[in-house]
């Protein structure tokens, strides 16, 4: 078939493009930045249809990058607690908090970077039955065992979760999902 350079009605099914982005499972390069440019923020927000899009829109518009985001209901009705890990990009690092604070949807915001906090992340993974024992030794919990594999969960600090996932990768994993951190300040 001769390709017309300016076909007003191109074929519906296009040739599959060669993937250029990393395959899932591969380590994803983080935005080039120093660690001190990454802030961990605990944010109390008003529940609403626009809240998440306002926050993510602001982060994009100011040139910041989201590394992780976790949201869940807070103890107050109509308000949610968000834990955001944000790279300040080319901006001054304190801008991340200051800009988010301006949003009417943001009720309270606290920068807990480097503070004494409990920070937990969760991994849920499906593995071959032969590996379960070793993972349980590391603290994983079995959620379900089926013909196609065993599902385990593991929660911990970010580095522990990272180590756990590295181990999974070495021994083969059928499927894995990982959350971002949720943090709470340590009581004195």
């Amino acid at each position, binding site marked *: 078939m001769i390709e017309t350079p300016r076909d007003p009605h191109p074929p519906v099914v296009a040739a599959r493009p060669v993937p250029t982005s990393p395959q899932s499972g591969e380590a994803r390069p983080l935005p080039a930045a120093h660690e001190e440019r990454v802030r961990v923020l605990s944010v109390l927000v*008003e529940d609403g249809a*626009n809240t998440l*899009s306002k926050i993510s*829109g602001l982060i994009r518009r100011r040139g910041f990058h989201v590394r992780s985001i976790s949201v869940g209901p807070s103890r107050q009705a109509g308000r949610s607690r968000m834990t955001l890990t944000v790279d300040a990009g080319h901006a001054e690092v*304190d*801008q991340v908090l*200051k800009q988010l604070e*301006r949003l009417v949807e*943001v*009720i309270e915001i606290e920068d807990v970077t480097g503070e004494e906090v409990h920070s937990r992340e969760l991994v849920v993974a499906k593995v071959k039955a032969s590996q379960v024992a070793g993972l349980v030794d590391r603290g994983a919990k079995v959620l379900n065992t089926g013909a196609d594999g065993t599902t385990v969960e593991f929660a911990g600090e970010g580095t522990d979760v990272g180590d756990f996932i590295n181990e999974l990768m070495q021994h083969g994993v059928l499927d894995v999902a990982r959350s971002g951190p949720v943090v709470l300040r340590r009581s004195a």
Partner: protein
Amino acid sequence: MILEALEREGVEFIFGYPGGANLPIYQHLPEHPKLKHILVRHEQGAAHMADGYARACGKPGVVFATSGPGALNLVTGLCTAYMDSVPMIAITGQVNSTQVGRDAFQESDVIGATSSVTKHSYLVTSIDQLPRVIHEAFHIATTGRPGPVLIDICKDVQQADAERVTPERLEIPGYQPNGHVNLDRAREAAQALAGAERPVILAGHGVLLSRAERELFKFAEKAAAPVGTTLLGIGAFPVNHPLSLHMTGFMGTGWNLKAVQNADVLMMVGMRVDDRVTARLADFAPKVKTFIHVDIDGSEMGKNVRPHIELVADARNALEAMTPHVGELQAGRGQWLAQIDAWREEHPLKYTHSNGHLQPQDVLIDMYRRCRNEAIVVADVGQNQIWAALWWNYDRPGLFLNSGGSGTMGFALPAAIGAKFGRPEKTVWCVAGEGGFVMTAQELSVAVEHQLDVKIVLLNNFSLGMVRQFQDDFYGGVRSQVDLTHMPDFVKLADAYGLPAVRVDKLEDVGPAMDAAERTKGPFLIDFHIDPEANVYPIVPLGKSLNDFWEAPDK
């Protein structure tokens, strides 16, 4: 219910355009004669009119538009108001709440499209939300650092029956603007400035927004500190005062830039310290030992320049709190002020006037002579804007309106119309280039319909002058897509719209044309054919420091 709520908020004018999704509001509009609706010819015009209205009289401007294209036509106007912190309420119609998300006719995600250019926005899908939302919107738009707030109201909500509800007490936990001053910080700031050898104060739009001109004047005189303003701060300090440095920034006056670049303490009040003020950031005010920043928006602290002393406060409160801590006579200040006087002599504003062409400055000097510190001057964007700013001559706080942050071409005519509605006792002069003028020229109909005293000074150089100047000076002299030879005959265009107009291309005809404009009640247009090669000076070449400003060539 919407209209009643607007009456309760004290709204007098609405600039709007009806359409399918706001028909229920318009159906009831005639029942509210206190709300004067100005039918615009394009929604962008409505937004700029509301903006000009708000800048001129200080009350929030109100805009109506329908869903989809109507609302999206507001985006540029919202951004203009947002960048310059202008209070505005935009009420847009949205499709029925049950149709949202179904790609209904004239549906668009207005909240999504406007979030980054509004201070806040609401999508109203139920009548219960409406009284609270409208009341909150006015509060948010007008308090703290002002800005536009958009309310997108589904059509079924507009026509829902509801009891008239008095708005409940305001409770917005996520919005607590703080205008109070940290008094220790204020003392520290005042003492730093008073103790400086070479102090400079720069004043921005925040000074005008908080009506702090008098406080600034007192403070500056007592501290014997020279004062420059940003483009949007023009009018915050009398320009003929011995302490005036006039406009700062990359097209600011030479003596201002010299002062900023040699200051040891720099106080920046009610301003964002953006790139147009600093030029190359690394070389901005390099001799400063103490930066003091006063702004009501805490996020401005350290956004571009990290202050040593920061005061997150309303400019007026801050200046009031600082003044008592400045000693009466500032010894040793004489040398610095004499140095500034010398720079003022050495780097005066000047322009070419010997090449036979009509110069824009000739026109503006004549215009300002007639303004007598009284008239409102609204400038468009481009060379006309900077000329109008630099030749501003008011010696008391006056109104110079322009789109500074957003730089929106087409702003001047609708904003001048809005300003006239806001301050009907004032003469309003609209200064524009021909490029920007035709972007919103359809609003001439509004000026004619309401017989508004808006005098239009068209500085017509047959090109996109500022872009042409940048191409000549900074982009290898390649003149690319800046030729505007093919434009309407503006006298005929004015005639078609129904307003008188004259064309002027000689210096001796400037005065008589201006006389005619002044004599005429209602709108008047003068098409000034100015020197097509006229440039803006001083100018700092792009990417250079404020030290590197170019001055007008002597020829």
